[in-house]
């Protein structure tokens, strides 16, 4: 600890111990604790206490019954725990009977302060820090703390209850690590008999057993949570013994009807199944299989999905789990089937009865079940360990059927189908989930007639006036994925004939959607257009269809949209369309014969005049892309283009636009010097590049940006200048050996900018002067400073202590102001 902090510490302790001096800010106490944690991690706690007796005094002081705030009490408990984590310090504190006074019966436990959840939480966290060594275990056993922790598991505060459970796991781990450690696996296994467990562990295990046998569901849940944490976080061999001991009780839960705490049980089983130590237990898989068959489809879904994500598990169980997961979809297919006996998702399991059992009669539960099933399958699809064979075709059929139920276009003949239809029609949640799932399925394709149905249903959603904006966005995304999937063969970008047919209808829909009064819809429409153009802009069928439609014209009109997000998307679309030569000449009904602007002019207008940041940022992104890809309008006069854009961007109020401007400058620079390969550029090329850079006035922008009040701008500028300096040969090259350029005016300007005077222009610069300035600047140091977080200066412990003292008015400066 530095001497200045040590000097401030007694005053701070006095403030903390004084109930009349409230510490207003909770975060100060947290920061203080973090600091003490860092100090004790780095050195001896005992020494710290001995050198700063005020700390022990503070802890002693807290023990006395008084009106200390619950926050200070909680802080003190955690602080004591932090110190006592080191065994010698623990002994030191024990000598003074300090720890029983804080954590034992005579501490806050029995006092009025215990009512405050923050005190109970501090007590638990203090013990959690303290429980690091065998002495701590003895202390816990003697002080009766374990019983208190048991009772805190049912605490009304969820934070306290959860922390109590975690503390139990921690204690168990600490207790069990002792006996199991240091022995080989075989020997260890022999020692894992329950009777040999340490008393403390044994008590906890007995408590868990009691809970698991309890009739009260909350107690069962508590035990299951503790076990889930134990198997999830502890990987010692002892966990195996614990599982052997408790698994029969867990299995017995399945005999109850209804199964208590099903969600916690699922979590536990998955936690055990993921544990490398336990997953070899065949009994485990049996329990899991039983659980799968006992729980309702809604409860079993997460378990089934979890099992299928496991790398290793018995094949039979995987088949069972997949069956559970697919059941709701199989029922949907069954409900929609026009005639019984239509092949479904699950062979042999179909039937009305199954459907009635699986699909809950309540709308909200049924919707929840379908959404979670679709979400699980969506996550499973891309995984390498997903079930094989993957039933792509029936899944596609199921997704399409669900979407049909949701928009009312399904016409089921069965009663169940009618019921399902009534529940799902117009349900936005299921629509979104099914569209997401359908999108994911595009990676697998499917039989032609099904793909036709997929496009048909997607079009229905895109056309329907009832599709909500979010559903429509998802429908656009799914359509794009299916169109991408339909490209044949993969290397060729051409759309397959079927998709080409869809394309015409899509463009008609898009036309209408771009005129929607709902801005979200116009926005998603434009995004879709941009994506389509990106992928098929070079393809003849697409180009023909697009140019024959009104879409490019409408997209261009949306550059004047009142909503800034839409304008931003319109800018992106215009950029993409123009890159592909598909840009429409603008002619709105207002100005039918107005002068036609080029896309570049239009976007420059957005960059210079738009009042919102999003469209201007979008314009910058488009310009950078154009420069990178060599857009025709750019290639005509690249320097002029860069100069115009930089001029607009450098003065922009939005920092992202300025960053984008520097990015564009970097791309320009890379293009100028890129051909030279890595390392320094040849002097003539460098000189040429520098002259070009000077002409487009990059340097004034870059140097100013070094002192930009927005850090990312300064960082970007640093990167740009560092890149340039790396390309320049080290100083003293023959060309510069002559007279050294006059850099004084530049440095003077830089100094003024650094001081915040922005008015001063840089004026004309010679390339040599620039190189000299670049070399004279310590860009690396600047970059490192910028990389620090913005509060690094204010974050020192000394500043923290000063702040805390200042808020209560103890520091000398403030005293002078007192009468």
């Amino acid at each position, binding site marked *: 600890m530095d001497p200045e902090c040590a000097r401030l510490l007694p005053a701070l302790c006095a403030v903390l111990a004084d109930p009349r001096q409230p510490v207003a800010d909770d975060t100060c106490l947290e920061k203080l604790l973090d600091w003490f944690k860092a100090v004790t991690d780095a050195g001896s706690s005992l020494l710290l206490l001995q050198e700063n007796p005020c700390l022990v005094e503070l802890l002693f002081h807290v023990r006395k019954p008084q009106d200390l705030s619950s926050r200070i009490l909680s802080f003190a408990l955690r602080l004591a725990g932090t110190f006592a984590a080191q065994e010698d310090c623990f002994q030191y504190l024990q000598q003074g009977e300090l720890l029983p006074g804080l954590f034992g019966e005579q501490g806050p436990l029995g006092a009025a302060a215990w009512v405050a959840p923050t005190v109970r939480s501090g007590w638990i966290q203090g013990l959690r820090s303290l429980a690091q060594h065998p002495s701590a275990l003895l202390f816990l056993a003697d002080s009766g703390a374990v019983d208190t922790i048991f009772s805190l598991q049912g605490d009304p505060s969820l934070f306290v209850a959860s922390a109590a459970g975690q503390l139990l796991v921690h204690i168990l781990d600490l207790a069990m690590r002792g006996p199991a450690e240091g022995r080989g696996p075989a020997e260890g296994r022999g020692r894992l008999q329950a009777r040999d467990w340490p008393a403390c562990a044994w008590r906890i295990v007995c408590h868990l057993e009691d809970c698991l046998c309890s009739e009260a569901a909350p107690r069962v849940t508590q035990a299951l949570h503790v076990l889930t944490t134990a198997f999830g976080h502890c990987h010692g061999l002892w966990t195996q013994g614990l599982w052997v001991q408790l698994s029969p009780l867990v299995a017995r839960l399945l005999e109850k009807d209804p199964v208590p705490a099903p969600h916690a049980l699922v979590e536990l089983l998955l936690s055990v199944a993921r544990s490398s130590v336990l997953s070899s237990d065949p009994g485990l898989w049996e329990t899991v299989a039983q659980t799968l068959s006992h729980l309702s489809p809604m409860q079993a879904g997460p378990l089934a999905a979890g099992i299928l994500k496991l790398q290793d598990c018995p094949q039979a169980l995987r088949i069972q789990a997949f069956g559970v997961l697919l059941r709701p979809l199989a029922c949907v297919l069954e409900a929609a089937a026009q005639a019984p006996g239509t092949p479904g998702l699950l062979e042999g399991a179909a039937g009305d009865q199954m459907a009635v059992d699986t699909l809950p009669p309540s709308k909200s539960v049924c919707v929840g079940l379908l959404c979670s099933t679709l979400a699980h399958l969506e996550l499973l699809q891309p995984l390498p360990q997903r079930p094989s064979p993957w039933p792509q075709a029936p899944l596609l059929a199921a997704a399409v059927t669900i979407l049909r139920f949701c928009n009312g276009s*399904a016409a089921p003949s069965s009663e169940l189908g009618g019921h399902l239809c009534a529940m799902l029609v117009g349900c936005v949640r299921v629509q979104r989930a099914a569209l997401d799932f359908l999108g994911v399925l595009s990676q697998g394709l499917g039989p032609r007639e099904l793909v036709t149905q997929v496009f048909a249903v997607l079009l229905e959603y895109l056309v329907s006036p009832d599709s909500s904006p979010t559903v429509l966005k998802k429908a656009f995304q799914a359509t794009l994925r299916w169109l991408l999937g339909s490209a044949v063969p993969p290397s060729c970008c051409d759309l397959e004939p079927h998709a080409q047919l869809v394309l015409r209808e899509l463009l008609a829909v898009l036309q209408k959607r771009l005129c929607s009064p709902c801005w979200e819809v116009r926005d998603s429409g434009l995004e879709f257009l941009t994506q389509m153009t990106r992928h098929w802009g070079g393809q003849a069928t697409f180009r023909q269809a697009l140019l024959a439609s009104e879409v490019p014209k409408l997209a261009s009109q949306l550059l004047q949209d009142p909503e800034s997000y839409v304008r931003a998307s319109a800018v992106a679309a215009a950029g993409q369309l123009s890159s592909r030569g598909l840009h429409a000449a603008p002619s709105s009904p207002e100005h039918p014969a107005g002068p036609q602007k080029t896309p570049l002019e239009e976007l420059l207008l957005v960059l210079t005049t738009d009042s919102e940041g999003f469209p201007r940022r979008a314009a910058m992104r488009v310009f950078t892309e154009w420069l990178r890809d060599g857009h025709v309008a750019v290639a005509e006069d690249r320097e002029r283009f860069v100069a115009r854009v930089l001029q607009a961007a450098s003065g922009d109020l939005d920092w992202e636009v300025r960053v984008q401007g520097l990015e564009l400058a970097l791309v320009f620079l890379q293009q100028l010097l890129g051909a030279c390969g890595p390392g320094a550029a040849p002097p003539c090329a460098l000189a040429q590049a520098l002259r070009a850079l000077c002409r487009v006035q990059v340097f004034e922008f870059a140097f100013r940006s070094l002192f930009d009040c927005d850090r990312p701008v300064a960082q970007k500028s640093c990167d740009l200048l560092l890149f340039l300096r790396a390309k320049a040969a080290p100083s003293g090259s023959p060309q510069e050996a002559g007279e050294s350029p006059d850099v004084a005016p530049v440095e003077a300007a830089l100094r003024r900018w650094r001081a915040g005077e922005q008015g001063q222009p840089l004026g004309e610069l010679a390339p040599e002067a620039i190189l000299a300035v670049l070399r004279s600047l310590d860009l690396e140091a600047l970059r490192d400073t910028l990389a620090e977080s913005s509060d690094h200066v204010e974050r020192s412990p000394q500043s923290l202590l000063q702040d805390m003292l200042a808020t209560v008015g103890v520091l000398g400066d403030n005293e002078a102001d007192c009468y």
Partner: protein
Amino acid sequence: MKLYCLSGHPTLPCNVLKFKSTTIMLDCGLDMTSTLNFLPLPLVQSPRLSSLPGWSLKDGNAFLDKELKECSGHVFVDSVPEFCLPETELIDLSTVDVILISNYHCMMALPYITEHTGFTGTVYATEPTVQIGRLLMEELVNFIERVPKAQSASLWKNKDIQRLLPSPLKDAVEVSTWRRCYTMQEVNSALSKIQLVGYSQKIELFGAVQVTPLSSGYALGSSNWIIQSHYEKVSYVSGSSLLTTHPQPMDQASLKNSDVLILTGLTQIPTANPDGMVGEFCSNLALTVRNGGNVLVPCYPSGVIYDLLECLYQYIDSAGLSSIPFYFISPVANSSLEFSQIFAEWLCHNKQTKVYLPEPPFPHAELIQTNKLKHYPSIHGDFSNDFRQPCVVFTGHPSLRFGDVVHFMELWGKSSLNTVIFTEPDFSYLEALAPYQPLAMKCIYCPIDTRLNFIQVSKLLKEVQPLHVVCPEQYTQPPPAQSHRMDLMVDCQPPAMSYRRAEVLALPFKRRYEKIEIMPELADSLVPMEIKPGISLATVSAVLHTKDNKHVLQPPPRPAQPTGGKKRKRASDDIPDCKVLKPLLSGSIPVDQFVQTLEKHGFSDIKVEDTAKGHIVLLQEAETLIQIEEDSTHIICDDDEVLRVRLRDLVLKFLQKF
């Protein structure tokens, strides 16, 4: 209580409720879909329509060719359009005491009822309903009268001939009751019978029932009605909306605790969500205009048009359509736009508050001020000078059979650049377009019906919990075209009773109580006796006096003097005899104690048997049987009167008398 169903159209109802001694007509809707069978009435001579070929029977018989014309495979009646009236034979309409109108669309048959059936009662409606209803009627009369048609076809209506006609004429129902439009004189006379009411106003009908209009949220001044007596409550729900549009929100709470809820006027397009449709309307409008086409919106002069104009007000600037002219053409366009602004108290809260600001409640005022919206009484006159294309025209009639819309259909129908957007749900757009085929113009169907959908109905019914629901039969099964959509029907417990045209329903509920007043002096003479804590009884001897559906108990006249026994009674003295009444008994007989008492009084050999309704006490020695049940006690003994009286007195000991 009976319900006479005079209309089969669920959204244009006309029912008569007989409740207590009153006869109340609920709405007076006019089914105008019959006009779809007629040829349009063009404002300007249409060569196409006038040269349509006459229709002849398969055998070539052409005797109907003057009355029926053929157009694109459909047959139309070439005559003045006629409307399908509510049933007039089911009940003598001159006996109707009052007519309750729920909204301006549901009063269009009023002149037929009030002027031609001997009706002498009163019509109740809110002020906006009457004013806008008048505008709708005025427009209708104007549309039809300004293009006089000499010819009136009636031959085809002959039952034997109608059978030979092609569909849909062949299947048209009740053609004999179809009537030509009423005159303005009849309209004025009918409207003069209306008495204006305000929401929540209580109107006494002959002292028997009280009727109250409640806001229904559907249109300006639209109402649902509560019809109640002291112990019965009937709610009439017609054309209600829970969406936030321009009218005052729907009052749901007052519908609670109804014995019967008559449910009519739900949305005609249950699968279309109005918000989505408005979006569709705007998108298609913009798309057409941007391509240089014109947009035609066939509509009524009031109602959804206010909301559409408001949407467009917000939309046109963002869609870059500020320079496109919007025309509203109707004989009552001006009045409609102006009326809407003055009915502040009938508007939604948001619009009401604007009254206190220097701005009108509806933004169409600003559209008019800025010349973006222009209105004209007809296409003749100023309109032809101002007319500029591309443009958007709102005009009637939505049936496309009369009104200025006919002209625009003829004018713009040939170009695929133009679009007709149907927003009114009352007419099938395909049938409306039939006489204009072949049509190059684009047709968009965005029906906007803000009335309750089935989900909202089921929520409403759950909340207000009526004992019985009565609704048109169309609402008790899914639509025929979507028979699997079980969600598109009224779902309630017990299942709703359904009605159809010309049906009489006995409503499933009996009146059990009637309120009776007691005169103060009579009440004064009563001596209540508490028989249970909180319940006191008193016997009353009085004369029940009933007049004007009010019942009063008056003190009985003094009993006639016994001396006058010989005097002959006169008819005027014919008052009920006031005999000395036996005391009333109450309480129950505890069998065990009763047996003990019997034993104490010397009866022996007593047996008690339990029966389903009580007990039988057998006095075997006396050969007597005492049957004790909840509400009666019988002593059965053989002619031993003394024993019977003894036993009776023992029984009476356990009972209270008063």
